[in-house]
């Protein structure tokens, strides 16, 4: 008979301080994308296949440029949060950390490149 209690066992294992934060972030970005994705598909889609002059002129317009930039930011944030859940479910140990860190670098990096490129086209 060990003198252990449920409370004592739970100690040091971390609390639920930020337990719902990830869930809420996913929910916020998913609602954002619900608005942005249809707008992005039907503004970006027609531009694809155009000549260099057409494409640069198209994204110099405010609406397609703002939609595209916002989509970059929210989609990569949402992707990063979602990928983290995928890794947490299937990968454990050191690779869990490496994959989450690596994909975070890639997601934020790609979002930055996308926003930079769109800003350059727009300005």
């Amino acid at each position, binding site marked *: *008979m*060990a003198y*252990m*209690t*449920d409370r004592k*066992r739970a100690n040091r294992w971390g609390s639920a301080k930020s337990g719902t934060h990830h869930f809420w972030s996913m*929910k916020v970005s*998913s*609602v954002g*994308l*619900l608005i942005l*994705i249809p707008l992005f*598909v*039907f503004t*970006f*889609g*027609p531009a*694809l*296949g155009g000549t*260099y002059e057409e*494409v*640069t002129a198209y*994204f110099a317009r405010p609406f397609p440029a703002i939609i*595209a930039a916002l989509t*970059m930011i929210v*989609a*990569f944030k949402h*992707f990063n949060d*979602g*990928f983290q859940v*995928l890794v947490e479910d299937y990968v454990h140990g050191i690779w869990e950390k490496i994959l989450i860190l690596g994909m975070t670098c890639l997601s934020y990096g*790609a979002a930055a*490149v*996308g926003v*930079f*490129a*769109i800003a*350059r*086209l727009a300005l």
Partner: protein
Amino acid sequence: MADVNRGNRPLSPHLQIYRPQLTSITSIFVRITGNALIVAMLMIVWWFLAAATSPEYFAYADAFVTSWFGDLVLFLSTWALWYHLLGGVRHLIWDNAVGLDLETAYTLGYALIIGSVVLTIFTVIVV
């Protein structure tokens, strides 16, 4: 309570035990489509970067993105995008503890499959 049978409890059955069902398959495809979309996302970022760099680099990137292979990736991604979006809507509904009964879950599952195909065809026609 504190010492009852710790670490020696039966495990819940794993994936290979369950018969695949509409609910489980549509669920796993939300995850697959969501993560697979990174390919198209990176391709689009590359395309934007090329357009912002120079006409020569744009011609190079655009040739890849609009090639048959690029088209195939974007076509499949269009379906994946609509599927993932509708799957997300389904989660937003479920988050309110609504529609979790089997009958509604199946209806939403069929709506997800049919809806994603219809939206993909619509996108291909319009865009």
